């Protein structure tokens, strides 16, 4: 019934490659059993996950048919509903056509399999398209603002929101974002990494509770974090809104991100390294400082960068506690301070097209920062979490060798 492409005797998959799924290809078309003698054809070499010619043919035919019919129907029946309606109709038609065409060569199971495959692939496509659409839309709407150099070097202090694009800019917002993120890094990175070290290295009685609480902390809505700082700093301590208060609110969001990522990374350090180090007679602190942390360093940097990428665009906590100003304020500890997310948010509520364009421009800058930090985190962190590159392994080995020689020379103190 199915085309089995991996009969015994045929080449087995290379060692270390994907799960042995390759042996029987679920993509293989499930052809109806023909009444007459089966036509013997050598099955063409197929790649797992690939698209065979028949599938491609059917899909393209259904696509052309569905779009044409949808266009025809849409012109006559529902002329008002916009692009979304058109595509929904076309998609429904596509599924119908695809099912019918597939039924000409496949049995029921095969048709269902194809339809589900189509639906699931569409969902993946929609997700990618949503992200792509958001990035593209922001870029198209905001590129006019970026074209003027003054956008990066001036502030809006002297200009109203309806000032033309060659006047004013986001300098104050960039300074504010930079300072606030820097302060929250200073506050939350030592705390987060030390907590992660506690969870993964010290592993005391509190560890279970701390892990649960940190997990819960990731879930605290950012507006609640902002409200907490508002209640603590602005009401209880009677201070005015400032960049520092905003940084504290950001830290509440950043600590759990740094902690959970760092804990995962520390857990990846092979236990053999710890044991080897301890067997050399080091203390726990020496093991952590000279073996565990250096081994995990790229991952720890990733943890910090992911934390930064997460909080750099947080708007709601900053909205509550940073106050509002258009002035340039270098001092994060006193007076209100602008930041990029706040700038975007204020801009989008203005009734002027130029203000909105500037908001999109600031959005591009913000998005680029997030992407840069994210990409850096990926590059420095190496592979996906859970994997170590060969280079990292080599480095660890070299470090261990160096450690072994250095401990033997080190002054015993």
């Amino acid at each position, binding site marked *: 019934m199915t085309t089995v492409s991996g009969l015994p005797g045929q080449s087995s998959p290379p060692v270390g490659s994907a799960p042995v799924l390759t042996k029987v290809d679920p993509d293989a078309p499930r052809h109806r059993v023909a009444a007459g003698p089966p036509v013997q054809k050598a099955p063409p070499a197929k790649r797992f996950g690939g698209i065979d010619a028949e599938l491609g043919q059917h899909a393209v035919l259904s696509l052309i048919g569905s779009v044409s019919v949808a266009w025809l129907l849409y012109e006559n029946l529902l002329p008002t509903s916009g692009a979304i309606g058109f595509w929904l109709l076309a998609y429904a038609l596509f599924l119908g056509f695809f099912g019918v065409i597939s039924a000409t060569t496949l049995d029921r199971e095969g048709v269902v399999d194809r339809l589900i495959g189509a639906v699931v692939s569409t969902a993946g496509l929609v997700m990618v398209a949503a*992200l792509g659409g958001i990035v593209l839309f922001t870029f198209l709407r905001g590129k006019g603002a970026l074209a003027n150099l003054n956008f990066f070097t001036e502030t809006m202090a002297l200009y109203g929101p309806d000032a033309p694009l060659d006047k004013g800019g986001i300098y104050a917002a960039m300074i504010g974002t930079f300072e606030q993120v820097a302060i929250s890094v200073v506050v939350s990175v030592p705390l987060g990494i030390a907590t992660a070290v506690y969870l993964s290295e010290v592993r005391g009685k509190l560890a279970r509770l701390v892990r649960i609480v940190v997990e819960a902390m990731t879930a*605290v809505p950012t507006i609640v974090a902002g409200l907490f700082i508002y209640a603590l700093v602005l009401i209880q301590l009677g201070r005015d809104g400032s960049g520092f208060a905003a940084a504290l609110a950001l830290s509440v969001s950043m600590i759990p991100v740094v902690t959970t990522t760092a804990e995962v990374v520390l857990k990846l350090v092979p*236990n053999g390294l710890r044991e080897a180090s301890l067997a050399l*007679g080091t203390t*726990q602190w020496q093991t952590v400082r000279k073996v565990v942390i250096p081994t995990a360093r790229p991952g720890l940097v990733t943890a910090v960068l992911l934390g930064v990428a997460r909080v750099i665009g947080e708007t709601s906590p900053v909205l509550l506690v940073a106050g509002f100003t258009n002035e340039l304020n270098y001092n994060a500890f006193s007076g209100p301070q602008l930041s990029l997310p706040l700038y975007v948010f204020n801009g989008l509520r203005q009734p002027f097209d130029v203000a909105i364009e500037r908001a999109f421009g600031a959005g591009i800058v913000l998005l680029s920062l997030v992407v840069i930090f994210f990409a850096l985190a990926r590059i420095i962190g190496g592979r996906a979490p859970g994997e170590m590159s060969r280079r990292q392994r080599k480095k660890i080995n070299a470090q261990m060798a160096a450690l072994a020689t250095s401990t033997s020379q080190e002054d015993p103190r």
Partner: protein
Amino acid sequence: MSGPSQDELAGLDGLGASSGRTGSNAPTIVVEKAPEPRAPEGRTIAQRPTTQDRAFVLTARGAAVSTLVIMLLIGVFLTLGAMPAFRQQGFGFLLENEWLPEAGNFGIASLLWGTFVVGLIALVVGFPIALGAALFISEFAPRSLKKALITLTDLMAAVPAVIYAIWALFFLQEQLLGVAQWLSTTLDGPLGFLAVAVPDSPSSYTSSAFIAGVAVGVVIIPTMTSVMREVFSQAPVGEREGAIALGATRWGMIRAVVLPFGRAGIIGGTMLGLGRALGETIVVFAIISPVFDFTTNPLESGTNTIAAHIAIRYSESSGIALAGLLGAGLVLFFFTLTINTLAGIVVSRSRSGAATEI
């Protein structure tokens, strides 16, 4: 979990510290002269941490405790701040749907309802896409594409909410007006509550719970996708192969192995998404026009959620009104905490079953 337990490590540590010169870090190797069996009363291995170690453990524990304290403080400060409002309103705080703090009459009933409606619409929009995308990434995507898609999902989760907000306000809303109008005019027969006052004017449909819900749905897609994908990818290889060996199609294999195995991941991921949706502030704030009334028609302009209400009202609130806002924040805190803790338990249960590998 493999690897030495705390006690084993402590024992090893003690071996170094208690042998020979105390405080020395140099390895001390005790060479036995003869292989004769030792008397059982030989040396006891005990942990005697150095000063350095004690300081290290104290510092790490201090950091962990301060994380606990921060979380505790959030609860304490919100509760303390909200006390006046709770004391004045009692249970009415949860049941009243007016917000007139000056008149001594306020509560969050309509806010709770609005939050629920927006969260529900977000799930209805986000869940199918997230489930499909997770299945696509873990089961259908070619190997070369898989890593890129995982990165893309994570990146989408990192896109700031304010970017989603401007996109939703200036792009999505326009696209959805026609859909909302069509839904309203087509369904107002069987679902009468969907009818709006002026059905022909597109502005009847702007700033509605529907549009806010769809936008929040897009925001929570990556959160749900990454949890579901991770659980799907842990479905045991042996059982997958078994299903395929029995002649299952890819979908047959997914239905028989991946979905049952990943059920907890689907539920947990959805709950995490819901938690995120309930707390979403900026997207909702940017889109809705705040109305302090029960949202009966999600397609019609005007609704409100707890998070958006806090962001809208904080600057003009003081005294009892501010206490009310803190109370609303406490309720939101409590809800998201409960949902996320439950989600965490569900997801971690699913992972513990991952040991059926052949």
